[in-house]
Every structure is written in structure tokens, then in C-alpha cells.
């Protein structure tokens, strides 16, 4: 591996990338791989989005209109798998690939060959997953949580589901290893751990979470596989196993997984808010400790997904209070972001608007999460649309908005050109309005008792469902603007970006030219800490 780094550099030192498809298939350059991750993520975002629109079209009015219930269930399952593993996670890995070396003054990722593998496994995994739609019995329809015994009733798609989860896990693990090694070993000489930018910090923590829980998910789905084909009874009651145990193992992965999807978002927002407030991040170190505490706590709260499976009172109390405890470090973060803006010279470019919307709307999702943590309330809300509203608030105006903020924020550095600010703002306002039109009514639906994962519902839920469906279609169409903005920027349609891009932003990534050259920081930067704010 070490030889590879040297070779690639020797080879390309004075040239750009190799021409043609080889550049991408054999890519080892962190910028190329980051770009591929981001493109894959954008494609998957639209694929998963079309599935969401199929779901919302069916739910526009009561009764069965467009799809049969089996296909509806396939859509909810595939929508979740694709959005979680195809859109959100690769987007953040792509951002890490592009930005972590630039932010720590490293010439590339530490393990470029492995980086290539961890990307190229993904298209294979998603091709395999998508192929299940055309198999006898259809795609997996058990929900992305894959609870047995239901998931064992999946048709021919079952082993393909398991293997694609394995591949996604392997890809994430390799990506995580690469990010950790890069951050630990390749920082600029004078960049101590606590001087690292927040995006780098949150990714370091995220990478450890990935390493700790993706293998557990792989283990859980392997047990499903052996239960189905090799006669084990891990989760089969008849053979002495216990289906509830799957839920324990799954959520031991599943809860840290939600922080895998939000911690890098915290990092992005922690970069953007200081830039557009023209102040350093308030409480940098406390942000690090808060993110670490969230990561630690994420391992001891999993059973809050299982309050209705039957649990002794002490267990319910423990998981309830541990869950609520997470609100403390999260509150520290929200407080620090707000304090960063306090008396700042704020301006509201598109990345800042997305970051601010993140701040408000993610917090709403956090609050509904607290409500769900309350055991007696959860027994009421469980498996209702309230849960759907909750996790979409933390994932869409949470993670997805942070990704969009990051793309608008760093895209001028990537392409050397600004996006069209007016179009960016239009995209922002349409997204923000429609995301609320889509998901806010779902709170009311859930409180009124509408269950999730159903293609038909009783008529009293009709109005709010129509509103949510209209919002979803509006949100979906608004994202075409996002694609348009990105494409225009990549085609260099906007005005030329300066090296600093924004008004005196902090961080090493702004010291390299725009667009960032194919090779950067081949000699480590002399001073890693820029303090232009005063």
C-alpha cells in the first residue's frame, strides 16, 4: 500500500489524471473517489426519491389506487435501504474523501487502493439490491429492519438482500478504516487532535462507530441467512431461538447507525455557521466532547426501539433515561451553534440557509425523539406515523440538508465556480417549505393513530395524507433544481471562485487554489491553523 502512494504520485506528479474511464475505474485520487461517491449518492437520492413518491402517491387518498400492498411494502423497504445506505452514507463518505485530506493538509487518503475498492463495491451492491425488484416474490418487503420471522418469507430476493447488506457493510468498514488512518497519521505537523476542524472530528468519531457496528449488522444478517438455509435456529422459536433477539442485535447496530448519519452533519454545520457568522466556532472543545458523549451513549440506548416487545420496568426505565440523556450533549451542540451566531456579522448565502434550517428542523426531530423516548408515550406512538415524522425530520432536514449545505459550501472549491446564488436560494426555500408540508402533518397522523407501513388507511386520515403527498411531490420536484444547480456549477457556468471562496473562511481547504488542483499538499502546509477571524 505504501508503495502505491509513492507510485501514483511519481506517475502523476506533473500530469493531471489519466484520460478516459481508467481514471474512474482505477481511481486512487481522493478527489476523484469523493466525486464518484457524491455522484452515486445523488443518483441514489433520486432513485430512493422516486420510491418515496410511489409511496406518497398511493397514500394520497384512502383505498388502494396504484400499487398492490405487496409492492407497496417493497417500496417502503427499498426506499429506506437505498436512502440510508445509498444516499446519506455515501454522501458523507464522499464529503470525507474530498475534504478530510484538504482540511488536515494531507496529500491523499492513507490507503488509496482500499479507497477505490470501498467505492466500487457500492454500485455492485446496489445493482444486486435493485435486481431483486425483478425476482420471483419481488424485492424485500419486510421493512429495512429485516425482522424475522417476516423477513424469512422474502422470496428469491432473500439471499441477495443479505449479500448486498454484507457488501454495503464491507464498503463502509473499509471507508471507515481509511478515514481513521488518514486522520490519525496524515495531519499537518502542527495540527494536534484538538485543533482539528469539527468536520474532521465528527468523521473520526463516526468512523469508529462504523467500525464498531457495521460488523454486528453483518453478523445479524448472517444469522438470518443461516437460519434460512443452514438449519440454525438463532431466531426461530421452534428450534429454541428467539425472534426478539434479532431486534436486540439489529438495534445494537441501528441506534449508532442513526448517529453515523447525523454526526458528519453536525460537522458540516459546525464548519458553515462560523464562516457565515464571521466568528470562530463557539466552544470547539466542548463540541468534541459532546460528539464523543453522543457516540458513547448511542451504544446503550438501543432497546428504546423495543419498548413494546415486553421488557421489565427496570429495563424500560434504564433505556428511557439513557435515551433522554443524549439530549444533553445534543443540547450543548445546538447551544454552541446558536452562540456562534450571537453578535456575528451574519450573511445568508445558500449553505448558511441550509445550515440554519438544519438547526431548527433537526431540533424539532430531536424533540419528537425525546417524546418517543418516554415509555408510556412510546407505547402509544410506536409504529405510528409519529415515528415516521420523527426520523424523517432528523434525516431529511437533518442529514440531507447538511449534505446539501456542504455541497453548496464546498462546490466552488471543487469546481472553481460559484453556483447561481439565486437558484440556490430558490432551491433552499422550496425544499424547506415542502419538507415541512410533507413531514409535519405526519406528526398529527401519528398522534391520531395512523400506523406506518400500510398502503391504505381509514378516511379520517385522508386530509393530512393528501397534504403530505402534495408536499412530497413538491419536495421531489425541487430537488431537480438541486441537480440543475450542481450540473451548472460543474459545467463552470457560474462566476469564477476565488481561492478563499467565502469571506475569510477558516481552514486549510481554503488555502489551496480554486478549483482544487488534482494534487494538493504534496508538501505538508507549514501552518495548519489559520486565524483570520479576530
Amino acid at each position, binding site marked *: 500500500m505504501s508503495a502505491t502512494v509513492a507510485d501514483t504520485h511519481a506517475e502523476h506528479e506533473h500530469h493531471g489524471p489519466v484520460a478516459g474511464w481508467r481514471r474512474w475505474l482505477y481511481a486512487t485520487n481522493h478527489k476523484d473517489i469523493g466525486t464518484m461517491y457524491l455522484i452515486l449518492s445523488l443518483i441514489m437520492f433520486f432513485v430512493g426519491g422516486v420510491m418515496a413518491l410511489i409511496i406518497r402517491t398511493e397514500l394520497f387518498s384512502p383505498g388502494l389506487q396504484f400499487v398492490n400492498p405487496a409492492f407497496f411494502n417493497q417500496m417502503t423497504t427499498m426506499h429506506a435501504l437505498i436512502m440510508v445506505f445509498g444516499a446519506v452514507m455515501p454522501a458523507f463518505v464522499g464529503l470525507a474523501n474530498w475534504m478530510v485530506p484538504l482540511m488536515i493538509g494531507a496529500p491523499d487518503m492513507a490507503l488509496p487502493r482500499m479507497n477505490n475498492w470501498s467505492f466500487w463495491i457500492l454500485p455492485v451492491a446496489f445493482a444486486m439490491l435493485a435486481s431483486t425488484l425483478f425476482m420471483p416474490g419481488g424485492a424485500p418487503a419486510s421493512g429495512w429492519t429485516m425482522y424475522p420471522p417476516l423477513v424469512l418469507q422474502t422470496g428469491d430476493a432473500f439471499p441477495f438482500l443479505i449479500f448486498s447488506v454484507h457488501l454495503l457493510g464491507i464498503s463502509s468498514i473499509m471507508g471507515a478504516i481509511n478515514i481513521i488512518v488518514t486522520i490519525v497519521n*496524515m495531519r499537518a505537523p502542527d495540527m494536534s487532535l484538538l485543533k482539528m476542524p469539527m468536520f474532521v472530528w465528527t468523521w473520526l468519531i463516526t468512523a469508529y462507530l462504523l467500525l464498531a457496528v457495521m460488523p454486528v449488522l453483518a*453478523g445479524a444478517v448472517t444469522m438470518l441467512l443461516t437460519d434460512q438455509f443452514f438449519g440454525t435456529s438463532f431466531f426461530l422459536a*421452534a428450534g*429454541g431461538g428467539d425472534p426478539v433477539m434479532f431486534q436486540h442485535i439489529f438495534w445494537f447496530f441501528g441506534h449508532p447507525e442513526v448517529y453515523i448519519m447525523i454526526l458528519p452533519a453536525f460537522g458540516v454545520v459546525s464548519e458553515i455557521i462560523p464562516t457565515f457568522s464571521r466568528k470562530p466556532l463557539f466552544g470547539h472543545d466542548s463540541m468534541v466532547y459532546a460528539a464523543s458523549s453522543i457516540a458513547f451513549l448511542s451504544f446503550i440506548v438501543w432497546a428504546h426501539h423495543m419498548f413494546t416487545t415486553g421488557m*421489565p420496568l427496570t429495563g424500560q426505565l434504564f433505556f428511557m433515561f439513557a435515551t433522554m440523556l443524549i439530549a444533553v450533549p445534543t443540547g450543548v451542540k445546538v447551544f454552541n451553534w446558536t452562540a456562534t451566531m450571537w453578535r456575528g456579522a451574519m450573511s445568508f448565502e445558500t449553505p448558511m440557509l441550509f445550515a440554519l434550517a438544519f438547526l431548527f428542523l433537526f431540533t424539532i426531530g430531536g424533540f419528537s425523539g425525546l417524546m418517543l423516548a418516554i415509555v408510556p408515550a412510546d407505547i402509544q406512538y410506536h409504529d405510528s406515523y409519529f415515528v415516521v415524522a420523527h426520523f424523517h425530520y432528523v434525516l431529511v432536514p437533518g442529514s440531507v440538508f447538511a449534505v446539501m449545505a456542504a455541497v453548496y459550501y464546498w462546490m466552488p472549491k471543487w469546481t472553481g465556480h460559484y453556483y447561481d446564488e439565486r437558484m440556490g436560494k430558490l432551491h433552499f426555500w422550496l425544499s424547506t417549505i415542502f419538507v415541512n408540508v410533507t413531514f409535519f402533518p405526519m406528526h398529527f397522523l401519528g398522534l391520531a393513530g395512523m400506523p406506518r407501513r400500510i398502503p391504505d388507511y381509514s378516511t379520517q386520515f385522508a386530509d393530512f395524507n393528501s397534504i403530505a403527498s402534495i408536499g412530497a411531490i413538491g419536495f421531489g420536484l425541487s430537488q431537480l433544481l438541486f441537480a440543475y444547480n450542481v450540473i451548472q456549477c460543474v459545467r463552470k457556468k457560474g462566476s469564477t471562485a476565488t481561492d478563499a471562496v467565502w469571506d475569510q473562511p477558516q481552514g486549510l481547504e481554503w488555502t489551496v487554489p480554486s478549483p482544487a488542483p488534482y494534487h494538493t499538499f504534496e508538501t505538508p502546509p507549514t501552518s495548519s491553523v489559520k486565524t483570520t477571524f479576530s
Partner: protein
Amino acid sequence: MRDTKQPKNDDSKSLAGRLVFLAVAMFGFGFLLVPIYDAFCEITGLGGKTNSIAATEVATEVEQDREINLEFVTTVNQYAPWEFHSQVKEMTVHPGGMYEAIFIARNLTDEVKIAQAVPSVAPQIAAKHFRKLECFCFTSQEFAPGEEKEMPVRFIVDSDLPDYIDTITLSYTFFDTARITDNSAVEHGTSHVTR
């Protein structure tokens, strides 16, 4: 530049190696959760699982003035071609006393079938106080075509049962063991099989 990077690449390799080890260890940990889970349930009595082998009879005093309402629930797994019910829907028992309940099952097919009944007790905390001395669930049961069987369970509800519990539900689910391939009994925790 290459000189300064050389030692770092060795560091990278060894760090990457340690991280791979961590990932492999966590994969193992996922499987370790299985025995941990079983041990946890066994020690705490959570999960509603009752004893899988006959409990020894201990002479305890029968608490004549305490009455526990015992309800029976029978379920047939969707793949199992059986008729299965209890002789009585519920009975009243005194802690410490020994009782017998009869369950009746009939093979609805014209083939020989092997059934496994899996018991569960609610509330879960009562499971470890529900001591079966004899149960048709300890072993799998063979049914001739169309055969009907009366199957007893003899049990004691021990007097350590927490005071606040006045109703216990005993549930049996009837499975067709053909659904579980034969080696399951050998492969995955033999202790499980006859629970």
C-alpha cells in the same frame, strides 16, 4: 516529502491492521451476543422462557389463601397443520401446589408429523417461578396421520412469585419441526431445542 512520509506509511499499515482486527472482533461480538442474550434471559428469567428440562420437586407448603389465575393460550404456527387447544381455558392455582393441565392436539394431515411445542409465560418475571415437572414441550411429539393426543403438563407455581402477580398466562405455540432442518438440533445450542 517521500522521506517524511515513509514512516507514516508503516504507521498507516499497522494502524489499518489493528482497525481490521477491531472490525473482525466486532463481527465476532455480534455472535457472542447470542449466548450473552440466552444467559441474561436465563439468569433474570426475562423473555418468558420456562425451564426446558423437568424441575425437581421440592416439598413446599401450599399457600391455600393465595389464589393465582392461570390462563392458557394456544397458537398454531402458520405452517403447522395441527388443531391444538387446551382442555380448559383457565384454572385457579395455589402457589406451592402441584397441578396438571391437559392440551389436545390433532394432526390434520395424512402424513406422520413431528411437532414441537414452545412455551412462554407472561408476565415474563413469572417465568422462573413457573416450574414444570413434566411437559410435552420437553421433547418433540410424533403424530400418526390424523392422530389426536392428550398431552399433560404438570407444574408448580412456586411461592416466591412476587405478590403483585395474580394472573399468569401460559402460552404454547405448536411448530412443525419439518420447517427446521434436522441438523438444527445438533448445530445451534442443543440446550435450546427442547425448551
